[in-house]
């Protein structure tokens, strides 16, 4: 048994030197893939994710098509080299579940009724995993959908709040997830103030839960602003050229 590392240091900072309410350094890029209709690359610290969106396009196989709206399909997948021990490339139970929750979060914002009998396919590929891959993936997928020009009610920013050594911390990484008491990822649409994804693994008191939601919303708003800026800058760059 490996000994539990110090997660909250004596000076109140976390094991990587962040304040409890501080995000990891975040990087975003859109339009990185030529063959996809929309694409995005997002980094939350050491977590690196690529998302690609195709559609609306014809549904294959045909019998899956829905008569009144677009079929939204989502695949969350971790590359075999994304973790320290090789991950089998076959979809695991966990990946199937995450594909489902991310799809349901995005279904709530996409105007799928505008494209009957078509499909919108979302591919999320985790290149490097260091905690928070589903939230990073959700952010990336949302950016890729915007880049593909698919009408949406709002962008979704994903961020996780955790409880480690009794302290609520924002954007937990792998180590804090492994040794912490709780992990709560959320997907937040900031303009319309709606939570599109909420999961909780571990135990929080009602009071802690309320504070965790507030903390997550605050963090998500910062990510949301950066997403907007990334989309804006893509076109600004071309103008300056």
């Amino acid at each position, binding site marked *: 048994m490996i000994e539990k590392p110090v997660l909250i240091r004596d000076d109140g900072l976390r094991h990587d030197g962040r304040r409890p309410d501080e995000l990891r350094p975040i990087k975003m890029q859109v339009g990185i893939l030529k063959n996809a209709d929309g694409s995005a690359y997002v980094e939350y610290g050491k977590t690196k994710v690529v998302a690609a969106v195709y559609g609306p396009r*014809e549904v294959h196989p045909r019998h899956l098509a829905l008569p009144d709206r677009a079929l939204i399909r989502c695949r969350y997948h971790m590359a075999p080299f994304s973790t320290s021990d090789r991950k089998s490339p076959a979809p695991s139970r966990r990946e199937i579940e995450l594909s489902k929750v991310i799809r349901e979060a995005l279904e709530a914002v996409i*105007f799928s009724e505008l494209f009957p009998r078509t499909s919108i396919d979302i591919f999320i590929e985790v290149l490097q995993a260091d905690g928070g891959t589903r939230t990073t993936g959700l952010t990336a997928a949302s950016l890729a959908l915007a880049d593909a020009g698919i009408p949406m009610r*709002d962008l979704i920013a994903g961020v996780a709040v955790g409880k480690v050594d009794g302290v609520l911390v924002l954007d937990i990484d792998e180590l804090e997830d492994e040794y912490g008491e709780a992990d709560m990822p959320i997907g937040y649409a900031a303009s319309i103030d709606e939570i599109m994804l909420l999961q909780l693994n571990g135990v929080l008191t009602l009071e802690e839960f309320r504070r965790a939601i507030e903390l997550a919303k605050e963090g998500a708003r910062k990510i949301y602003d950066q997403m*907007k800026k990334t989309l804006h800058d893509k076109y600004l760059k071309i103008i300056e050229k």
Partner: protein
Amino acid sequence: MSSQLKILVADRQIVRPGDILAVVEQKIQRPSYNPEKHVYIYEDKIISTVLGLASVNDNDISVIPLEGRYFPRVGDTIIGLVVGVGITNWLLDIRAPYKAVLNAGEVIENFSPITTNLRDYIDVGDYIVAKIAVFDRTRDLLLTVKGKGLGKITEGIVIEIEPSRVPRVIGKKGSMLNLLTSKTGCNILVAQNGVVWVRCKDERSSEVVVRAIRLIESRAHMRGLTEHVRMFLDKELA
């Protein structure tokens, strides 16, 4: 919309999904949501649904998308690529999420499937200029080639552009297209699905037209684009 709006964005400003464009100040009646404007109404706010440029007109607001595939509408002129030949119809790829059908009766008078082979008229790989005749979202769409300037393409070159750039290549009231045709003397058809058909007298001018269209495509959101293209054409044709 019969309500007073407080508009929060400038005309031609870049907006993203979720951006609040305007606030409804006086609600006379519930404003309606029109998907073709790429906005929606949430509580008392008008919010953009796509990445695009805001278009402010008096007391109305809409967004011109910068990305996105072609979505068909009845009456659109399109250029389709024939991908299949059936007994009584052709199947066309029009770069939409749906297959398009062109019935043989549209092309051949007194058509009888026993005596005619459709491949003698139009074969796989041909480009067809057509209009969308029927599209009711529940079945594949029907095309028609009855009308002026419609039919099989037999000369010139066909290039594909981003469908979201079509309004810019045409320009306000056709200004950009007029500029291209008058400067080069070429015949240019910009189809709604982002396929452009260029017919020129010589290869030199058709090459310049293609490069000018690529320029418009890459700088679609630039201000004063028409002037920029005019300069480009003057330089290239001199």
